């Protein structure tokens, strides 16, 4: 039986200040590629098991660093399948000089007759003028081995020795690679932000004789593209190609600029016109609506009252047909009794509460209304928002925490808080971090399930350009005040040198990047201090400590500023 074939994979991530572990699903894709190119042989995955990461600044100031990162690794075996995977990096981050250097490194790897190199690109391949193709021309002879360039659809370009590919290789690769991505629907739903506050639901409801408030306000400005793609799919399914000139997608919901942007983009994608619903009721339709079939897009539909008002107005207009109605966000239950028997199709369904003003607890507490415009929140979370989040989950006895400190008998289940409200908390962190740091975001925290969930939500908010260094609690606790001397930390780092978190810290230190510390709770300050000791001992600069809730213990973090989302000045005993 022949020896296993080596698959040597480099997972290259740009816009990140430290390496990240390669996921099992991605490793599986690499093994699959190896088996396709070395049929009949077992494959063995080589490489560090972590990404090769570069910051935006490194790509800007030193594009050649990419190639050095690839070359510094153990050299692949002479007959290895070498994978250079750029697929998880946004196409627009691939600076041309960077592609040139990666292309040159790929050609060097391919210059062994038995070797196959696969370069996987994100999205579609760059245009013919790209320096990547110049690098891959590589003189008249070309590489002695073979080199394949795949884009995410599986389209193949090849250089050097001929490679026999199995049937349907490209299609199968495209299908498998796409499984690593979230669907458009999932991306839309995870980026959709539900802000907490005290929101006045506005004029349309008042016209219907109702003064209504809501504790939630939705914002899709971070997922306009996803919303537009979902709408385009709906429109393209509902409208025949020949009928498109008669159609117009009309955005309703003037308070949210994102509705208009998404509708404009969706209309352009679907090849129909875009229009705006009139701001005030009009007896006659806007002239661009006349003779048209309209598809309406509402931002958020709760009960359907505002949609009903709009549709009833449209029924009185001559020569205008409203035939389709969508909303970016709609209620979990169907909206009934819309005029003309229309059905409202929400792109995301949510539980949508609203409350008459005379029964609104926030009005009773005389809390001021919140600004519906995102980005205006300043200072800590509102007490009403924090406590409504904490009281919406189970409270459990605290089962982990610092040594020699009192455990809380009952504490909110933060993992559930982050699952339910992580989008909002990530948004509030974004506002804090925008003021604090402009560099690549690296977050260090104890490696615990609750914080891990928060990091997942932060990652979505930050367009996947965040590195989380999750440090297991044991090494954190080894750095408590009395053990936090630099020599002890050095010994600790040596002991754990092969663990991902220690290598990530080493990456950050080498790059002179800074980290922020995040934790759900700052109770006694012990964990924060231990983390600070560990990071200081590792010579990593800490930009700040950002707990969700700070109970303001008397703890000295040196020069590290504390920016909590909320303060309860009652430290843990």
């Amino acid at each position, binding site marked *: 039986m022949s020896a296993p074939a080596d698959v040597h994979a480099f997972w290259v991530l740009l816009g990140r200040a430290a390496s990240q572990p390669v996921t099992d699903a991605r490793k599986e894709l690499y093994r699959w590629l190896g088996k396709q190119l070395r049929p009949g042989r077992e494959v063995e995955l080589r490489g560090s098991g972590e990404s090769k990461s570069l910051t*935006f*600044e490194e790509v*800007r*100031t*030193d*594009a*050649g*660093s990419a190639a050095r990162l690839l070359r510094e690794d153990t050299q692949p075996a002479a007959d290895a399948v070498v994978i250079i995977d750029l697929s998880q990096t*946004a*196409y*627009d*981050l*691939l*600076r*041309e*000089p960077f592609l*040139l250097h990666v292309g040159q490194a790929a050609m060097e790897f391919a210059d062994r007759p038995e070797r196959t190199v696969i370069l996987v690109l994100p*999205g*579609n391949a*760059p*245009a*013919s*003028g*790209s*320096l990547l193709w*110049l*690098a891959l*021309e590589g003189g008249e002879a070309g590489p002695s081995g073979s080199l394949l360039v795949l884009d995410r659809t599986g389209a193949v370009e090849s250089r050097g020795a001929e490679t026999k590919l199995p049937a349907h290789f490209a299609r199968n690769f495209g299908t498998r690679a796409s499984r690593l991505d979230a669907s458009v629907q999932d991306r839309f739903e995870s980026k959709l932000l539900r802000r907490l506050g005290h929101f006045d639901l506005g004029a349309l409801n008042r016209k219907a004789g109702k003064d209504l408030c809501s504790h939630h306000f939705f914002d899709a400005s971070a997922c*306009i*593209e996803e919303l*537009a793609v979902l709408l385009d799919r709906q429109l393209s399914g509902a409208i025949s190609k020949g009928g498109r000139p008669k159609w117009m997608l009309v955005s309703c919901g003037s308070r949210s600029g994102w509705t*208009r*942007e998404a509708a*404009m*983009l969706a*209309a*352009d*994608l679907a090849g129909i*016109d*875009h229009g705006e619903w009139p701001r005030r009721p009009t007896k006659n339709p806007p002239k661009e609506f006349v003779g048209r079939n309209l598809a309406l897009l509402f931002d958020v539909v709760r009960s359907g009252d505002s949609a009903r008002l709009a549709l009833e107005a449209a029924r009185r207009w001559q020569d205008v047909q409203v035939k389709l109605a969508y909303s970016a966000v709609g209620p979990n239950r169907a909206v009934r009794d819309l005029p003309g028997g229309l059905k409202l199709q929400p792109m995301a369904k949510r539980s949508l509460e609203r409350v008459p003003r005379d029964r609104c607890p926030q009005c009773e507490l005389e809390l001021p209304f919140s600004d519906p415009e995102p980005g205006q929140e300043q200072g800590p979370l509102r007490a009403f928002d924090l406590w409504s989040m904490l009281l919406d989950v189970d409270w459990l006895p605290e089962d982990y925490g610092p040594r020699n400190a009192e455990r809380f008998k009952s504490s909110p289940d933060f993992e559930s808080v982050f699952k339910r409200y992580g989008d909002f908390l990530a948004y509030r962190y974004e506002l804090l971090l925008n003021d604090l740091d*402009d*560099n690549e975001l690296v977050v260090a925290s104890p490696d615990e399930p609750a914080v891990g969930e928060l990091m997942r939500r932060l990652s979505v908010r930050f367009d996947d350009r965040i590195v989380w260094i999750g440090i297991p609690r044991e090494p954190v606790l080894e750095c408590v005040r009395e053990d936090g001397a630099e020599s002890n930390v050095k010994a600790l780092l040596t002991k754990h040198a092969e663990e991902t978190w220690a290598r990530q810290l080493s990456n950050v230190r080498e790059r002179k990047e800074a980290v922020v510390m995040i934790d759900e709770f700052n109770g006694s300050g012990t964990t924060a201090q231990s983390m600070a000791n560990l990071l200081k001992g590792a010579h990593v600069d800490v930009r700040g400590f950002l707990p969700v809730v700070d109970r303001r213990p008397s703890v000295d973090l040196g020069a590290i500023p504390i920016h909590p989302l909320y303060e309860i000045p009652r430290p843990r005993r």
Partner: protein
Amino acid sequence: MEVGESVCSFKGSLDVPRTENALMEVPEGPYSPRRVVVDLRETGFIDPIALLYLYSILVRRIALGHETELRLPGSKAARDFLRAWKFPEALTSATGMKFRRLVSPADHGYFGEEQTHYLEGKAASLEEFLAAKRFFGLMTRPIESSARRGRLVEREWSRWRTPLILRVLDRHLRGDGRDVARVVIYELLTNAVQHPGAGSVTVGSSVYGSVSRGQRQDRAFAVSVWDDGVGITDTLRKAMGAGSIRAGDPTTVDRFTLKPVGWEPRGSVYESNWTPDEAASDAELLLASLFQGISQKAIRTDIEPIAMPGEEGRATQTGDGLHALYRTVVNDFGGSLALRSGSFFMNVKAGRKGDPTSYSVKLCRYADWPSFQGNMITARIPIASGG
């Protein structure tokens, strides 16, 4: 005309040579302390690079406290162009002077005038929307610190990745709209922020067109970046004093056929594997700055005489940035790349048809002219017909 006053009249198309010729009418040059009236009344078409050029001169004059008056174009398209480029806002932001104070009272009808948009059909509404969001126009940003340089590049690059602008670019440009952010914006800015002594960078962009006999003509998308740092030729000359400016060999040899104006080249065609020596003229140095492998930072340790901004001066660079830029702009988008620095103006466009390594370069030297402050590079990309 008042005593001690100069009037610079711009007629027809406002391009760089005409701008400079008009400014040359001012005794003692454009920064003369005498009162200057910049008269654009008979200007029909404004070239973006000329506008940014004029902007740089007006900013300097105002900073020096020299009295200046602006007569606005009589043509509506040209006035729209000023608005589209956010020319008034940029001047106010750079100088603190209200634009109205600069404009002759006879032209105050400009304020409150409605803007015409130049993309047609469905895209017109997208363009209008982007204009309303002030997407296009001029924007000046300080870049004294390393953090600010990085931030400027990343923020401007991010702006060009948003879905609506990508849709407009994809629909109207010959190449991949995503390459505007990835290559054009990125390399223009990366180049500008690395120029020694640069304290600020101005980025300008616009979709523009001129209207002639009811037909829309010359529709193009342009993005221009002006930095106020040391000129490219001076930087290269200084770096050459410390060693070679050749950091690596080109991966492909490009051929540049020259149309020289105001200087004598040593040949009519230059190839990108040529390395300028001490005897090279400034014009040749400017041309060579485009070549792959030519870099002010070829020598990493001994370019001390030049105050390099931050650590970038020490990073390994192989001089690929401008090479990538002209290939994308010319080969992929079918456009041209113009560069203004020192006493030079250079424009690069496609050369022999079907040959991606052939370029035609017009390189003009204005010997009697005060040196242009800083460096300005403009990528001009035609809007595909029917767009």
